[in-house]
């Protein structure tokens, strides 16, 4: 379904800020898989999603979706396979357009033409979809998105990202910047939609509990590498404590490596 072959990405090469964000990522994700991704800040999680979506191109390696090599395809082309929710609620919607206009933007992923974007039929459809979220958005369908709260905007983004049943859904800590209450709500909306549509999903989260509770496979990243990849029975037996221990072990190794460099 989604295959990453030996992906390398280095930012600001040749400068003092040189960062090896991804160092040889190999992963094969099957149709219907729900992958959760954890890792410390700067581990390369967002970069990984950007490589999949085509927002940035890898220095080395290949990206395949559904058997098609999309390594050099542009982001807007890959959008026909991919739905995306960003960490920042401001990033997923057009603020000066209305709720219904935003939803209308998300129906088609290619082949836009001179038909009116909004009509009676799709307005009714949007209203029903919004009502299912139980956030009262269905009554403010002609309001500008800039008037919504972060949580409401994020709920709208989830809806938009999944409107055109994507082959892959990418979630990048999409509830991290919200209050615990609304964060829970957005997470449950997301899980409902993923289950209903059986979407192949990659969810980055900083919450270990979420990482183990949701999905069927978990990877841990560190400094541009995948250092843990568990699924099935093995994953059932993993505890948050275990994950935390992995983290602290990494930090110790870091320390030793740094010391060696200093010597």
């Amino acid at each position, binding site marked *: 379904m989604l295959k990453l072959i030996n992906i390398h990405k280095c930012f600001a090469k040749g400068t003092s800020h040189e960062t090896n964000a991804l160092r040889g990522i190999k992963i094969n994700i099957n149709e219907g898989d729900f992958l959760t991704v954890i890792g410390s800040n700067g581990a390369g999680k967002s970069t990984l999603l950007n490589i999949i979506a085509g927002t940035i191109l890898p220095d080395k390696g290949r990206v395949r979706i559904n058997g098609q090599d999309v390594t050099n395809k542009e982001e807007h082309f890959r959008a026909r396979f991919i739905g995306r929710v960003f960490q920042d609620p401001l990033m997923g919607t*057009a603020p000066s357009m209305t709720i219904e206009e935003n939803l209308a933007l998300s129906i088609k992923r*290619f082949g*836009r033409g001179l038909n009116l974007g909004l009509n009676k039929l799709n307005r009714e459809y949007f209203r029903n979809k919004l009502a299912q979220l139980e956030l009262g958005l269905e009554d403010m369908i002609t309001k500008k998105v800039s008037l919504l709260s972060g949580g409401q905007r994020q709920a709208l983004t989830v809806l938009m990202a999944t409107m055109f049943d994507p082959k892959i859904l990418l979630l990048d800590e999409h509830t991290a910047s919200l209050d615990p209450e609304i964060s829970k709500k957005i997470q449950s909306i997301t899980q409902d939609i993923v289950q209903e549509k059986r979407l192949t999903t990659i969810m980055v989260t900083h919450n270990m509990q979420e990482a183990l509770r949701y999905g069927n496979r978990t990877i841990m990243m560190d400094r541009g590498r995948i250092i843990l990849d568990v699924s099935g029975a093995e994953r059932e037996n993993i505890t948050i404590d275990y994950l935390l221990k992995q983290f602290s072990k990494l930090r110790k190794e870091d320390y030793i490596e740094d010391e060696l460099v200093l010597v």
Partner: protein
Amino acid sequence: MTWSLLVHALEQGLVFSIMALGVFITFQILNFPDLTVDGSFPLGAAISAKIIFAGGDPFIAVIWAMFGGVLAGGLTAFFHTRLKFTNLLSGILTMTLLYSVNLRIMGKSNIPLLGKVTILEVIQSWFPQLSSDQLTPVLFLFVVFSVKFLLDYFLGTEIGMAIRATGDNEQMIRSLGVDTSGTKIIGLCLSNGLVALSGSLFAQYSGFADVGMGIGTIVSGLASVIIGRSLIRNRGSINWMTVSVIIGSIIYRTTVMVALRYGYRLGFQPGDLKLISVLLVVISLTFPSFRGKIKTIILNNGSNGVENE
């Protein structure tokens, strides 16, 4: 203030409002500060003056003028999307290059159209019972509102909405499958096509095309957009926004003409036109806060005259 001054201001406001709608598309909708306008306005004038002076069909002349404007916008889009120049530089390059192009088209710096058959003469001949003072404003109203309604419709289509989203949140609309280079190209072509249309109509209305007539077009276009926006504030549906641009343009032209006509009492000269337009932009840009201040002063006068906020 005389009646004929007002009628002239209305006519000019309407002709220039088509240009202002073009500026609205780039600056407001696409969030692309496009300076091509200073070149594409006289381009429209030059192309149609050339054709009309040679005795060609004035309607065909208008179509060629628009086509020229579309090409100019396309060139700016090419500089920006393919060669990756900044949006400002892309517009400046096209604007500058158009100065030479316009001179070449016209073959001299000024083409007079007096006594030539313009669309105004042709349409006048269809309605012999109307005087030109009656016909011209009605005709311009008709043209401007046709453009407005077509534009409103277009901005509500799938492509039009993608263009609006490009100016609003480019990353988001790309992740929804829109090639934002494409939407910028369409927006810039459309915008400059309208600006050239405006230039073509203005040349025929005022009876000449001049290679220097584009200077400051962008400033007056911006002034119209800004004045219009301060009128409607947040009631921001597209229909309202385009109406406000047209009204903004009429207010702007009226103000400029009044200032030119009566400004000598304050020491203004005809050559101060551009200075006045910049002053108007600066004032209208600060207008909302200006209005707010007046309000607090008025309110505070009622109590103790001390500003609280």
